[in-house]
């Protein structure tokens, strides 16, 4: 039994696959590749796998992470992408597989790019502050500083946000609720890529 961390992209048509369905897609891909996933003990065993930072349905990502424990002896993790990728729908692609080095709690910031189709971004110099209703119906004030945003070109704005703030929400606050969003990176508090 070995725990493995898969880094994958989810682009194109697969962006519309919900997080729950994505877990199903991976389970079937592992079955096709004849790699058995370990199951939890107990009355209702479930496969031991977890997407670390569920992507909202409709967003793309080139930096998505799945932790999975294999029952099958899979050999070198380096060869896993080659083995599993032909078993995945086009658009989901494992880029790298490795032994988890950081803990999920180490995730500090998520980088995304938001592209608008018509119009361009206007970024206020003092950043943006807005209120968000939480699940428990409290109101939370969210501040995104100017330094957390970077204009790549007129149409594309890059965000560096804490994992619990949706880039779509910030984009909407800046007047572009229908921006196309792609996640490009995940970092720890020292600015190292999450591995």
């Amino acid at each position: 039994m070995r725990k493995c961390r898969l880094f994958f992209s989810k682009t194109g048509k697969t962006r519309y696959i919900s997080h729950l369905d994505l877990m199903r897609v991976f389970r079937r891909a592992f079955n096709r590749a004849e790699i058995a996933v370990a199951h939890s003990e107990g009355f209702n065993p479930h496969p031991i796998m977890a997407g670390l930072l569920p992507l909202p349905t409709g967003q793309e990502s080139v930096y998505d992470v799945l932790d999975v424990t294999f029952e099958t002896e899979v050999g070198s993790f380096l060869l896993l992408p080659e083995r599993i990728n032909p078993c995945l729908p086009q658009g989901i692609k494992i880029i790298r597989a490795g032994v988890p080095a950081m803990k999920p709690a180490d995730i500090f910031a998520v980088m995304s790019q938001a592209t608008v189709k018509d119009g361009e971004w206007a970024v206020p110099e003092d950043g943006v502050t807005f209120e968000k209703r939480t699940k428990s119906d409290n109101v939370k004030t969210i501040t995104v500083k100017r330094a957390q945003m970077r204009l790549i070109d007129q149409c594309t704005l890059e965000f560096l946000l804490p994992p619990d703030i949706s880039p779509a929400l910030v984009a909407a606050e800046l007047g572009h609720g229908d921006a196309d969003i792609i996640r490009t990176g995940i970092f720890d508090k020292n600015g190292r890529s999450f591995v």
Partner: protein
Amino acid sequence: MCYIQIMNNTLHSILQRVQKPARYVGGEFGEIIKTGAEVKFALCFPDVYEIGMSNLGIQILYKIVNDLPYASCERCFAPWVDMAHELRNADMPLFALESGDALNKFDIVGFSLGYEMSYHAMLSMLELAGIEPYADKRGADAPLIIAGGACIANPEPIAPFVDLCVYGDGEDVIVELLDLYRTERSKQKYLSEAAKIEGVYVPSLRNEYKRRTVKNFDSAPFPTAPVVPSMEVTHDRATIEIARGCGNGCKFCQACFINAPVRNKSVDTLVSQAVDVLKHTGAQELNLASLSTGDYPQLAELAERLLDYCEPRHINLSLPSLRANSFSPELMRRISRTRHSGLTFAPEAGSQRMRDYINKNLTEDDILSACRAAFEGGQSSVKLYFMIGLPTETDEDVLAIADLTFAVLGQWKKFAANKKQAPRITVSTACFVPKPRTPFAECEQNSVEEFTRKINLLRDKLRGNKNIKFSWHEPQVSRVEWILAASGQEIAPAILEVARNSKGLQAWDEFFDYTLWENAFQL
């Protein structure tokens, strides 16, 4: 920005707003993309993606057409109400999943009609695609609209809308129809040639037609590499079709009469297809499709060999509950290890008199002894399916459903190995719909009020027992089903009227609107 780009941008913003956007994009594992084919065929299913993608017929035809070097097959499903609304607002025609091309860009658009309540959805799909629903008003440049499926047992209600329809097995006919299209593109000439193909009915020519059966069922094309949905669908499992047709001849059952004769696939073929389809889909459950799996002659051998593959891989095998007495105790143990779903029976009628009358070859003893075996094996839930409103039915026959239910509960009390888990007996009743091409075709259906009275009678008798759960099919729905199944062409305008005024898919409880149908039928 080119047209395609604008369409995609519009589509993307629409997909951000609708429920389950994965229904509308394709891109699944096993999807086949062919560009620039000589004959473009759109395979349409008049219900949502989750239902259509669970339909074996769709997967069979998808494979057959895409296997033809000159043709391409793309899928299109009925949009849910939110998506239909968005498409109308954006003035965007209904499109097929593979290329995103609008349905009116196809050469042939085929609908699978398995349920009368989806007739109106076919018309909605045509109108959403900007295609005139009435065949005689469609222009020469419109696609050919064709239909097949169980409902073609009586094609008249939808005949004014289709250029042709296919009665019987579709495997061979679809190839003949596409072949013909390569050489004959003028609609009039095409239809008069197509009318000569066995199984094809061209309503505008009112030709004589016969039901078609596939030449060699064992070697018939089978989709061992189907499209595997990325989202959860109604039946999330791998399927092999072990037999077509049913030899039991229950008098109410249309499937029996329109799929005769019984044809079984060989065990070797089935095991090989099962392994292929499981490998391709990565599914955790294997389903044996047929009208009566218990009647498959080598069921024990088939089960043994499938279990050899499934057991070590933790793949569930759904096997029928009946005819268990032909299995060895060892095989029974292996089956019960892989089956989680509990027992299911369809006695159809409560009294032996009625079961004999409808030709349902099942005795109370058969049911009770199978229940006993299951309860002794530690199971505690049983599902029982019945019909009410069968011809000659009396109140005694209705109440006999309750008697049989109590007898099953009695078996649990006597024989249950695991008394800690409370028994759960689920009783479901459907309202009898006289179907075309059955011995009961000419029977009158019970009125909605009579159905309701009988349901209440049964409910009163079953009431108060917390181990029994009683559910029933809505009589009003069954009434509409019967009118749609049994009518002629005069009903067609009513179907179109419902298509235009329905808030959603009428096959779904939340959208079923009896008043709308009553007004359309002018009842």
